[in-house]
């Protein structure tokens, strides 16, 4: 029950401070309208799970938040900075927003420790010694400090994904984006990554997760967003979302994903 108490405490930490503000945002890939009139406000400390069928634009949505994808209409404000074409502006936002990818995207030519210290040293200008201490702190947190001197290729998928989380945390981000972090993992390794994410949520990190792990959504999220055809179809608290979905499309999706 301690975990639930902690989670309840984390719920309290959701503040009125806006972390991400998306309004009337549209995006096209060529002629294909991927995101249509997205309106979304994320408050500091919120944990949002984004679900939906493949091709619904959920990954594209969170990739727009740190400008990995450019949006063509509407506005995105991250931590008070409006995303524009100015590259310095974009780099500043990116250094405040951590991102974890489906395929980990660790740097294979650098050791685990170097993976974690590179950005703090060169973007944050942290002294090397201090950056290494921070890195070891977060590697301990994701429970793999002993792998610090190995290369990513020597680690299992679950370990690599935990390193990827630690690498993002080393930048001390205000917001974390997760793009299907467990989809490329063996079933046995999913839980170790989810545990790390749950721990992060308990500490009050603002999180946006694209995931198919509905158990995780139930336990951790304070809002679940369902997307289809580039638009937000339904959003609600997890309890209501799972037990009492309003739209037909959501019902169909849930019946398929929870059917067996």
């Amino acid at each position, binding site marked *: 029950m301690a975990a639930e108490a902690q989670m309840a405490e984390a719920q309290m930490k959701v503040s009125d401070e806006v972390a991400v503000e998306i309004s009337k945002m549209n995006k096209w890939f060529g002629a294909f309208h991927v995101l249509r009139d997205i309106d979304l406000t994320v408050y500091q400390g919120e944990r949002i799970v984004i679900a939906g069928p493949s091709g619904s634009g959920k990954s594209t949505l969170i990739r727009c938040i740190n400008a990995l994808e450019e949006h063509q209409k509407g506005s995105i404000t991250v931590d008070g900075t409006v995303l524009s074409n100015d590259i310095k502006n974009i780099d500043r936002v990116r250094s405040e927003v951590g991102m974890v*990818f489906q395929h980990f995207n660790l740097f294979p030519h650098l050791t685990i420790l170097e993976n974690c210290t590179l950005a703090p040293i060169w973007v944050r200008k942290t002294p090397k010694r201090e950056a290494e201490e921070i890195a070891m702190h977060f590697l301990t947190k994701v429970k793999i400090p002993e792998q610090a001197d190995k290369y990513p290729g020597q680690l299992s998928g679950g370990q690599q994904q935990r390193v990827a989380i630690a690498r993002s945390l080393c930048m001390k981000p205000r917001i974390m984006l997760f793009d299907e972090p467990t989809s490329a993992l063996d079933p046995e390794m999913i839980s170790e990554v989810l545990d790390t994410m749950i721990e992060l949520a308990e500490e009050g990190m603002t999180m946006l997760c694209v995931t198919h792990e509905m158990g995780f959504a139930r336990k951790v999220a304070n809002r679940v967003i369902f997307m289809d055809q580039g638009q937000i179809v339904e959003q609600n608290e997890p309890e209501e979302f799972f037990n009492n979905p309003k739209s037909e499309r959501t019902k169909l999706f849930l019946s398929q994903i929870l059917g067996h």
Partner: protein
Amino acid sequence: MSKDNIAFHRTHMLPEAPPPATETGAIKWLRENLFSSVANGLLTVVAGYLLLSLVISAGPWFLNGIWDSPSLTACREMLDGRTGACFAVLTERWNQLLFGFKYPDELYWRPTLAFVLLFVAIAPVLFVKFLPHQLLIFTGLYPFIAYWLIWGGSIIVPVMALLGVLFGVLVYRRTLTVSAGVAVLAGIVGAMVFWWIAGFVTGSAAGFLALEPVASRDMGGFMVNLMLGVVCVSLSLPFGIMLALGRQSDMPIIKWICVVFIEFIRGVPLITLLFVANVVLAYFLPPGTTFDLILRVIIMITMFASAYIAEVIRGGLAALPRGQYEAADSLGLDYAQSMQFIILPQALKISIPGIVNVAVGLFKDTTLVSVISMFDIVGMIRGPILASAEWNGVYWELFGFAALLFFITCYGISQYSQWLERQLQTDHR
């Protein structure tokens, strides 16, 4: 055993036994590698016969070789009808083969010293992990030292050239806060201005700490090949990287400049570019400017090699998964940082075999300068040595020697690159 009776239990364990003789040692190796089938066995016998006859026919040629004789006629007399090589041409014309026929005899120590120092200078680059980084300072100084040693003249010239570079770097650092593009431009302009001003100083101090000057046209032999090879490879690598990145750029003008340059240079034979360097370039320069021939050739070969290296590196860049770019971006690294720390180290590692291919090819192509009447090693052999009364007709020994020099160098480069690839392998496949 009947079908019903499948039960079995072991009463005693089998002891470990040695494999049969046909499965061990030399016999196994012979059987697997030389006589694995009838056809392979036949091929082995035929190849063995050919090898043996080669050794029997070429052996005496090497063993009876004459190493000391003033001319081919004298050599033939000493051989007295036996088969044998006239290696004497190598010993007698040794200095010409290495330094050309006009480089002053008493100054041979200067290019020799520059050659020895070359190894000191490239070692810290080649073995970056094993040698202290401070040694790289010498690598940076080496081009200026080597220039001073080989061409001679006042030390003021290379010192001013070096100071110009340092001044350019200083300007670059100072303007970096504005933007990277502006900083590069400002750095280049700064260095140019410095050199222009320094031109007045060097003119008046020509005698200061001067080595006896040697003109470019007096240089020849393998020295020229080495100079062209080393300079052009080390210049074409950074230019190739810039061209490859430029070709991937989002900025259309930069992209098109790079594409046109690469496609044009790749579409033209090197020999044409060399003729351009030799003859045509003079028409485009203001009259009266003396533009050193070696410098012109260096520019042309560098342009040629850069275009090829750019395409090799582009292949490496294309082989990297998009995720690497995205991960670098998502951490807030700017373009220069993500290229320097994430993209290029991986892309260059993938490109090593291709880059070495270009480098080795380029090094051998330096012999093409003999066509535009420069006396590199091939030019020396075809010109002054074979045309002389003493050595007219000695082909095998001379060209064999040239081939040996190139083989040693290229094989060394190839072996180093394979070692480097193993060093950089971190994926533990």
